[in-house]
């Protein structure tokens, strides 16, 4: 029997957390949550989730970006798949740095509102044992 995968949702919107939490639980995931970046980082260090869903605009409108840097700074979380879920691009059109350009150390960016089927499919893909990881995707695309 395969052990259930754990997903950590870091988002300050309790409605979003509840809805997405139920969605993932119904798909067989164990869900744990945090309502801000600081709490999310602490949870990530202790829970060691198989996948992190990360909001950007929380107390600060760029909080998720900073949290992601902190997550990547923890050796045990360096390759943990992270899906950044945010409406920052639509809310702030002046911010036009594409998440596909390699600057964001996430595995995937999904704009809010999310499409449930897409989230389930991507969660399954990123937590599958065959997933090669972000580092492979990053080659040649990162400014660093």
């Amino acid at each position: 029997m395969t052990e259930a995968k754990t997903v950590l949702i870091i988002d300050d919107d309790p409605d979003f957390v509840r809805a997405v939490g139920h969605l993932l639980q119904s798909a067989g995931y164990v869900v744990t949550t945090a309502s801000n970046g600081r709490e999310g980082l602490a949870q990530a260090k202790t829970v060691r989730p198989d996948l992190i869903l990360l909001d950007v605009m929380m107390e600060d409108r760029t909080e998720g970006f900073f949290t992601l840097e902190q997550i990547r700074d923890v050796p045990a979380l360096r390759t943990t798949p992270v899906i950044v879920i945010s409406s920052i691009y639509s809310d702030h059109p002046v911010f036009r740095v594409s998440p596909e350009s390699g600057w964001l150390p996430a595995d995937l960016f999904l704009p809010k509102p999310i499409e449930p089927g897409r989230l389930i499919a991507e969660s399954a893909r990123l937590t599958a044992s065959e997933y090669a990881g972000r580092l492979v995707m990053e080659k040649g695309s990162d400014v660093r």
Partner: protein
Amino acid sequence: MKICKIPKKDLDLFASVLPAFGKLYAPVSRGSGYVFDQPLSWSEISLGYPRTLLPPRKFFLPPREALFSFDAREGYRDLLAEASEPQVLFGLHAYDIYGLNILDRVFAQGRYADPYYVTRRQHTAVIGIDFDPDEQHFARAMNADFVDSGFDLFLSDIGPDYLVRVGTSRGDDMVVMSGCLLSEPTQADIAEFKRRSSERHAAYRTEVELGDLPEILEMEYHSAVWKELGDRCLSCGSCSMVCPTCYCFDVADEVDLGTRAGRRIRTWDSCLFKAHALVAGGENFRKSRASRIMFRFYHKQRGFVAEYGRPSCVGCGRCIGACPAGIDIVSVIRMIRGQVDAH
């Protein structure tokens, strides 16, 4: 030099893309002061800080670093890779950048370039920001209140926006990557920059005369001031630790218990420490505290001028706040000049 501007309200978005150029460090509040550290969020960054406890030199000359390891079977292995970790220092004041430029002269442009320092300097982006001087700043007197090199970007407050001076191609990459967050400044922006620059220059409250100081120090070699300072100095080295341009270091080998492997370690040192000039055989060339504090002043205000054409002090005022004995560099210079009586 390319110049652009960014609205202050969008600086958080700009800072979000900076980690693409390295680990981001910025001034954040810690306890009763400020330090350069990794911020957990944009609101944790304090861009209006007066000065940090330690200068940014810690990112280039760490308080303690392993230079290489050695093993009886495998030989030597340099540890330069650790120094290649990209980093972005956000929000440095001009005098601290000037301090780095001074360290460059010693560690990068001198006869013997230090590969560890040079590697860190190459892999570190520096973004400066202007500030309002307080009563401890005397950077203007040290000609370190404005920099035209040593940074990738420099932000100057012009009201609702920051005027951004681009100092390097890496800085230009940052601008390009940020897309439309930055734009061309107008003539009115330039005029505001000039107005505020003059205003800031005039805002310094602490003045020190430097012109003939090296000669006066030469004349005051046997001054009673040094004895008085020696009596007050605790030789704690705090002034050295917080100085942006102090670079004395100690080197020692740490050998494993089996004595077959180890590492060479470089740590910060201070010319004020009692053992600083202690050599094999037990001779100590600077036994007295008076001689040690005197030579610290002579190195910064006289020896460095002779060697590099300017004092190595940048007027940040950190040593004034750090000294538990209340020794104040500005007062010392005035005492030497005879402008203030020795206590």
